[in-house]
C-alpha cells in the first residue's frame, strides 16, 4: 500500500488549500505524525504550545479541570480538525488539556519551526495567520451560540 506523505495530506487539507507546493514542502518539513492512546494527553493546560496539531484519526477532547467538579469537556476535534492557535499567538501557552478519547493520530507541526518559516516568508505567515483567524472566528461564533444554551427548555 502506498503511504501518503505529510505533504500530500497538508496539500489536500482545507486549512492549507491553495498554498503553493514549495510552501507545503516547507511546512511538511516541520511536521511529523504522532499517535497517542485513548486517555493520554496530547497537551496540558499551562504548558508551552510548542506544536500545531491536525487530527487525522480519532478525537481529542479539550478539557478544563476543576478541583470541585472534575474535568469538563468544552470542545473537541475529530478527523480533519485543527488544534489550535496558541502556536501562533503569544504567550504560546495551552489553556486547556487535550486528551485523546480514543486512539488518535495527529500531524504535529513544530511551532518554533512554523514561526520561523512565517518570519522568513511574511506572505506565508500572513496566509497562515488569516487562516488561523478564520478558524478562531468560527469557533468563537459557535461558542457564543452555545452560551445561549438554546436546547434547554425556555
Amino acid at each position, binding site marked *: 500500500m502506498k503511504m501518503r506523505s505529510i505533504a500530500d495530506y497538508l496539500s489536500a487539507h482545507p486549512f492549507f488549500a491553495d498554498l503553493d507546493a514549495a510552501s507545503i514542502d516547507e511546512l511538511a518539513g516541520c511536521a511529523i505524525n504522532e499517535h497517542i492512546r485513548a486517555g493520554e494527553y496530547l497537551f496540558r493546560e499551562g504548558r508551552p504550545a510548542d506544536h500545531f496539531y491536525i487530527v487525522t484519526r480519532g*478525537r481529542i*477532547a479539550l478539557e478544563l479541570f476543576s478541583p470541585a467538579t472534575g474535568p469538563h469537556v468544552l470542545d473537541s476535534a475529530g478527523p480533519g480538525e485543527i488544534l489550535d492557535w496558541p502556536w501562533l499567538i503569544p504567550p504560546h501557552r495551552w489553556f486547556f488539556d487535550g486528551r485523546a478519547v480514543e486512539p488518535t493520530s495527529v500531524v504535529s507541526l513544530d511551532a518554533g519551526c512554523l514561526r520561523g518559516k512565517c518570519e522568513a516568508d511574511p506572505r506565508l505567515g500572513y496566509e497562515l495567520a488569516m487562516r488561523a483567524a478564520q478558524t478562531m472566528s468560527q469557533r468563537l*461564533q459557535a*461558542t457564543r451560540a*452555545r452560551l445561549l444554551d438554546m*436546547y434547554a427548555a425556555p
Partner: protein
Amino acid sequence: MTAAGSTRPQTSGSPLIPRPFRVLATRQETADTTTLTIEPADGVPLAFAAGQFTMLGTFGGAEAPISVTSSPVAGPMEQTIRDMGGVTHDLTTAEPGDMLTVRGPYGTGWNITDGAGGDLIFVAGGIGLAPLRSALLEALANRNAYRRVVLLYGARTPAEQVFRDDLARWAHGDGGIALDVTVDRAGRGWAGPVGLVTNLIPGAGFDPARTLALVCGPEVMMRFVAIALIDAGVPAGRIRISLERNMKCGIGLCGHCQLRELFICTDGPVLPYDKVADLMTVREL
C-alpha cells in the same frame, strides 16, 4: 422543483372538528419529553405528510401544535411532546388507553422527493429531531431514490438526545444513513464530538450542488446552520427549515402565528430558507 409545502394529503371532514384518538403506548425520550403512539378511535387512519403538525389536545382541555414524528408511509402514528407546562404536561403524562383529540394535519411538509437523485442532509437540534424523524423514515423507506443521506444532530447533553434507539441503530449503519451526533456539554463518558452542530457540516461529505437540506431546531440554531450550509455551497433555496409560532386555529384564520405576510400554520411550518431568512432577524414579528 416543487416548492416546499405545495403538496398535502387530503383530509376528510372539517379541519376544525377534533377527532378522538386513543393512546396505545408511551415512550419516555428524555426527562421532559415523551412520544405517544396513538390510533384513531374510528379506525380511519390520518393521512399526513412528513413535517406537518396536528393540534393535539385533551378532552375538555386545551390544544398544542405537535409535529407528527412517525413515518408517513408505514407504522402507527407517533407524536413527540416536550413538557412545557399546561396542556403539554397533560399530554406527556397521558397513559395507554387515554383518549386525546386531534385536529389536522396542518401546514406544509418537507417534500423530500424534491431531493430525489441527490443528497439529503438533515440537521436537527434538540427536540427538533422530532419533526425531521418523519421525513427521515420516509427517506429510508425509499432509500434508493437518494444518494447520500446524512443526519447531523446536536443535543444539549448525551442524556438529552431524543430517539436514542433510532440513533443507536443508525449509528451502526442500519438503513444506509450517515449519522454524526454532537453535544453542547459532556462528561468523560461521552467519546463523541462536543460543540455546535455546525461543526459537523464540513465532515458530512455531501455534494452541495446536489443537496436538499432539511433543518429543524431552535431558531438561532437554524440560522447558524443555514449560513454554514450556504458557506458550504448549498443554495439558500435548497435549505428548508421548520418554524414554530403560536399556532392556534391551524387554518390561517386567527392570525396568532402570523409572521408578517406568512401564516406559519398554513404557509409553514416548513419553509424555504431564502423566503424567510430576512424575516427571522426582524424583531417583534
